């Protein structure tokens, strides 16, 4: 169970570039729930994910994951509970290191790392079995540097890495945005498989309304740092891409009205 209450985050406070990226965001996600986060550019959807991951410490509010208050914990400590896949396929793996080494690093996510050899025979076998499930023929190339693989392959491996030790929470940050449609489809398929098999609690930011409609059991729509819509259960199942699009239009229209009202007020009173 992830519980966010009254989260606030302002970037560049007190300057011209001030951005209120999160404003009073409260959200609770039940165990095993798969939540898709949609939003316009700059709506704060990635910021929300990064706040949970610990990329920065929030200005206000609390984050509680399975009873542990992680609001002030640094990123590396939260990693014990959280698995992550990034938007950039190159962010989730160390390019110069071998496929095997990358995976073995993930096999110790959040655990103590000692002076034992990283690639033991047992872990190599386990590794091979896991990589085989990807059906990409990578199990015979564990020695080669991961940097030589395509973005899709790297993203698939990152998914495998983030869920190797079952995370209490899986964070996916537009993890198919940088891939071509076909590869993106494959990665989404894999995502679905890993999430359902592990019954993982998942928070996925996406720009694709199709993905949001097809995947998961809940849709959250953000705008200007706030959660504006929250659909779950039957309501979520009935959602279609067209419905989501019209909601976006509505949000934009409200924006314009806001701006126009502000202008009018300015003309009247200033």
């Amino acid at each position, binding site marked *: 169970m992830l519980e966010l209450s009254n989260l606030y985050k302002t970037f560049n406070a007190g300057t011209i570039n001030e951005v209120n990226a999160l404003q009073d965001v409260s959200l609770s996600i039940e165990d095993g729930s798969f939540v898709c986060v949609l939003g316009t550019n700059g709506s704060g959807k990635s910021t929300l994910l990064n706040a949970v991951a610990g990329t920065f410490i929030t200005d206000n509010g609390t984050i509680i994951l399975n009873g542990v208050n992680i609001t002030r914990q640094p990123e590396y400590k939260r990693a014990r509970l959280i698995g992550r896949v990034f938007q950039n396929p190159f962010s989730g793996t160390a390019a110069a290191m071998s496929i095997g080494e990358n995976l073995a690093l993930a096999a110790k996510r959040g655990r103590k790392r000692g002076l034992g050899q990283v*690639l033991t025979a047992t872990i190599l076998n386990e590794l091979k079995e896991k990589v085989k499930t990807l059906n990409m023929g990578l199990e015979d190339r564990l020695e080669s*540097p991961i940097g030589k693989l395509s973005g899709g392959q790297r993203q698939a491996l990152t998914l495998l890495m983030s869920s190797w030790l079952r995370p209490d929470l899986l964070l996916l940050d537009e993890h198919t945005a940088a891939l071509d449609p076909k590869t993106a489809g494959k990665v989404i398929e894999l995502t679905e498989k890993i999430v359902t098999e592990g019954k993982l609690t998942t928070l996925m930011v996406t720009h694709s309304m199709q993905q949001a409609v097809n995947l998961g059991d809940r849709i959250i729509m953000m705008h200007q740092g706030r959660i504006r819509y929250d659909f779950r259960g039957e309501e979520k199942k009935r959602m279609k891409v067209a419905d989501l699009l019209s909601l976006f239009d509505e949000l934009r229209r409200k924006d314009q009205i806001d701006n126009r009202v502000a202008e009018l007020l300015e003309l009247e009173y200033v």
Partner: protein
Amino acid sequence: MTLLIGSITIGLILALLALGIFISFRIFDFPDITAEGSFTFGASIAASLIVAGINPVAATALAFVGGMLAGAATGFIHTRFKINPLLSGILVMTALYSVNLHVMGKSNVPLLSQNTLFTWFEDFSNNISGKDAVVNLIGWSVPARDLWTLCFCLLIIIACSLLLFWFFRTNIGTAMRATGDNDQMIRALGVNTKVMIIAGVALSNGFIALSGSMLAQFQGFADVQMGIGMMVWGLASVIIGEALISENSLGMVIAGAVIGAVLFRLLVAIALRWGMNPNDLKLITAGFVFIALVLPGIMKKTKKIKLIQ
């Protein structure tokens, strides 16, 4: 021939420096100029302790520890106060200059009549091959003690290389390599990258101080100026090693750094013998590193132009 053996021996000693530079520059991508201070720091610690009558092995080990402390200071300044790596190194290097003068009490400590690691090697040679024995090596007669000294240095550097090779394949060593490669990724896997950087820069400077302490014992003195230019020297060695060994597996890269250090020392010895002005040494070293850094980019461009034509 004696000159050749002497050069190789110094090359092997400086290979420890190359290993240190390899750790900071290549593994962590951390341009660490602390090297210039910690090289001398190692030399001054070892020299002062040996003059005070401490066992040379203990003195050398303490030099290693001293170097690690210097490196940890740089790493700490960088990670805790977010000061850029180069500036953190400059701060510690500058501070170490005064520290070194305090440790030695003066700017130069001679070790000529002292018991050092190298007098031990000589004693060993005298016991095994007889006093002032001469060995015939492919037509040249070479003092046996020079050969024994070379062998011991070779053993030490092989041991250090193997130790590093082993370490960088352990769980914690792999996490260090990943920190230099992609810190975002390894943080998401639960590694405190700040601690990794501090430990890595410490390890790097430990090896550099070890190199300095051994060079001081070999040449028979420690001098407060002896660290100047050492970072570029080490970098030149690492670059030569990389050029020789195009493969980038961990073992080959470490071996490359060692071979590069020996080769670079030999090149310098030959150039000096041909009458190069020793004052130009650092100028030429710097020029060499500059070319080595720029050349790959230029070669890529010319290749592209050829392809277009």
